[in-house]
């Protein structure tokens, strides 16, 4: 049903923009111990670090137009290798989704819906993902376009109101109050977290027209994401102090709670929360889409809606079972630090080998 879909430049930029800001919106505090006041710079550098890998995906995708990375793997390395890799990919996507869903649900529970059972919130979020994926992928891409822009404006509008009064320069200067090793550790950690973007790119590459020529689209998306995310971390640090920022969860919402202008403007965390919700809706749908695409590929695209239903259940049940912010936080940290980026590099290496094998086979055929 998505065979003819083609993403526009803006859609690719904004899809990559929002696919980077997933779990790192919650777990960036993990690196604060190492990076100190330079956490915003480490965020910036860490996100930029995934540019080479994304360009790699674009070049690999060029060799198999209208196909995903898994199609490339299958043509060169065979069905069984592809199934094995796909299964790991599906589980990673589910794990990342479970962590994100739990962290978002807990935030909602802490600030706004104390009496609502978490599973209800989780079910709502997953049902929305199912709804969006049951339509055309083009529609979802357009939705992301809107939500990414709205979310960014919404987030920064609230903080702009208090820019001179609540922004403490002494909290962010001097910038480098950490060791080089600590800073590099933070950068690598952020790169691992931001590489969630590559999970999506591996499947949406088929909708990008002439990917090798349009690799600048993804570069623009990643750079803009790095700037925006680093700015958000900088604002939180400047408002709350680095010491407080690293000790608390939900930095953006907590920072927004500090905003009071006169006697009438308060409680703007409600609007900042909307940005977190936009991110959660988009990201959970994206994880679901990635897992669903890989599972469809394993079963040769038979009964896609059944696969979508199963994928959503596979995200929902572990999420309800986990039901903890702390566990979800450590799961997301573990995935960002050790799993996602190494696994994606492995897939890219295998895909490149697959292309070489395919080219060799073609070359050995006598003309």
């Amino acid at each position, binding site marked *: 049903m998505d065979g003819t879909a083609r993403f526009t430049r*803006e859609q690719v930029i904004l899809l990559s923009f929002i696919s980077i800001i997933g779990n790192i919106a919650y777990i960036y505090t993990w690196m604060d111990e190492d990076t100190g006041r330079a956490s915003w710079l480490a965020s910036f550098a860490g996100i930029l670090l995934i540019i080479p890998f994304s360009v790699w995906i674009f070049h690999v995708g060029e060799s198999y137009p209208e196909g995903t990375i898994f199609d490339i793997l299958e043509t060169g390395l065979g069905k069984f290798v592809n199934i094995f890799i796909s299964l790991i990919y599906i589980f990673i996507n589910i794990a990342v989704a479970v962590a994100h869903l739990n962290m978002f649900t807990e935030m909602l529970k802490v600030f*706004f*819906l104390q009496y609502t059972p978490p599973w209800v919130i989780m079910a709502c979020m997953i049902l929305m993902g199912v709804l969006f994926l049951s339509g055309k992928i083009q529609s979802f891409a357009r939705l992301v376009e809107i939500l990414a822009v709205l979310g960014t404006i919404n987030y920064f509008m609230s903080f702009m109101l208090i820019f001179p009064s609540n922004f403490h320069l002494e909290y962010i200067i001097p910038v480098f109050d950490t060791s080089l090793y600590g800073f590099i550790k933070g950068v690598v950690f952020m790169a691992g977290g931001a590489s969630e973007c590559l999970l999506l790119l591996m499947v949406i590459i088929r909708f990008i027209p002439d990917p090798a020529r349009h690799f600048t689209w993804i570069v623009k998306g990643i750079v803009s994401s790095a700037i925006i995310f680093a700015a958000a971390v900088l604002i939180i640090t400047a408002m709350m102090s680095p010491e407080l920022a690293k000790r608390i969860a939900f930095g953006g919402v907590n920072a927004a709670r500090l905003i009071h202008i006169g006697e009438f403007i308060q*409680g703007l965390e409600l609007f900042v929360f909307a940005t977190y919700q936009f991110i959660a809706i988009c990201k959970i749908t994206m994880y679901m889409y990635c897992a669903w695409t890989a599972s469809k590929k394993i079963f040769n695209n038979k009964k896609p809606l059944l696969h979508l239903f199963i994928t959503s259940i596979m995200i929902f049940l572990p999420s309800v079972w986990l039901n903890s912010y702390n566990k979800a936080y450590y799961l997301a940290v573990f995935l960002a630090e050790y799993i996602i980026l190494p696994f994606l590099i492995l897939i890219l290496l295998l895909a490149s080998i697959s292309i070489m094998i395919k080219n060799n086979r073609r070359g050995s055929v006598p003309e």
Partner: protein
Amino acid sequence: MKIFNKSPKIIKRRKKRQTGNVNNSAQLPSQEQERNIFPTIDENFGFINSILGSGIGLVRGKYCILDNKVQAGIAYIDNITDKKLVSSQIIEPLLKTNIDFNDGLDGILELIQSRIIYVPDTKISSQMKDMIDSLLNGSAVLFIEGINTALVMESRKIENRPIEKPSNEVVVLGSLDSLTESLDTNCNLISKRLPTPDLHFEIFTVGRLSHTTVKLLWIEGIANINAIKDVRKRIRKIDIDVVDGIGVLSELIEDSPLSLFTTYKQTQRPDVLAKSLSDGQFAVLCDNSPYGFIAPITFWDNFRTMDDYSDKPFGSSYLRFARCMAFILSITISPLYLAFVAYNHSIVPPVLAMNIAEGRSGVPFPSIIEVLILSFGITLIREASLRIPGSIGYFIGALAAIVIGQAAVSAGYVSASVIIVVAVSYISTYAISSNTLLSTTRLIDYFLIVLSGMFGMFGIINGIVIIAWHAVSLESFGVPYLYPLVPFDSEGLKDTLIRAPIRVLKKRMGLLAPINRVRINDKDK
């Protein structure tokens, strides 16, 4: 326990048998009697009478014409035919003219058509069905004794109401004429504004019973030809008995009839139609309907008025932006109030919170019920004031709004703050320039109120995201509904939320007019 004791096959067979008895044929008895014209006048008159019946007002007359050499019969239907025209332009010339003809009856109808009668729109036919249809459309029919063809002469009595001011799309600086029920008048109003041979009028007849004339209008070389092919195909596909008006037609040819949003625009203003045609859109006009259908449209078309192009750009942009804000306010103010009162108290300043709490003391309903009842109540008041004839409607509206509202607050049934919120929501709804968006706004409002009552701000955001997804999924004849915002087209944005100066609006929107985007030529270069 066995619930189904009949196998599905048996049920299927029975259903088939039942539906087999129903006459699914769209053919009517009168349409089935397709035959040639009789050679004698009496037989023709008799047949027509048997088809149309005596109650319709069929007038028949026999005359000896052309120096008593030929016997002719004229038939027409009283009330819908212009009798003066028939007598002065057809019967009188026939009786008075003496022409020598010695070729027998061959070519007599052509002779009458070209040299005797004064009616320009005529045709010769040998089919009785043509005669019946023409009579029902107000034409007069001339039979000649001894030949089995007849002459159809256009003589319909046209009773038009005068062109009046557009009552539903009032503008301050725009033109003051509006469409009428006459298709010809409407076409004239448009071609007066666009006197170009590139303006095409394609005629269709829709409706098995109503035989409604429908015209498709577009400008060759500007309109997207794929959209024209698409609408042509959709109009030809329509197989309905009666076309009640442009509303029925619109629903049958639009992209998503089940959507909350309408993917077309209805207007009663000929200047709006002309502007749309020049932008690359097409229009559909329908006989007996004072509204025109415009497509493809985008969501932003709902906020445009002709005043935008008469006023200065800053003023127009300000008002257009205000209309967009009115839409947002109309769908969000009630749910936001509910969320702030019931769930997310932190945003409400303490002084205001105290006032709201005081106002709510003694109100027996939860806030969500209060908001829903009041919203529905205002819908009822609106409907009542619209349906009650004359000025009593305004009186009832004012009475209900002021007296009942005040009494309800005094009696403690509802709080004053809810009345303010719901009233602001409704006033905002009417600030939107499009009539087709009114009920959509109200339905979205209810949807968000329910979600807000269930989940507070979380529910509202989810609702807005779902509506946004629905809107981005829509297309109007191949044009995405939120274009040029999504997919992004910077050129098109100049006339969307704001109206840039006319000099800057050099190009038409890419997806509306892909083959000819130039609106203003730069003559200085």
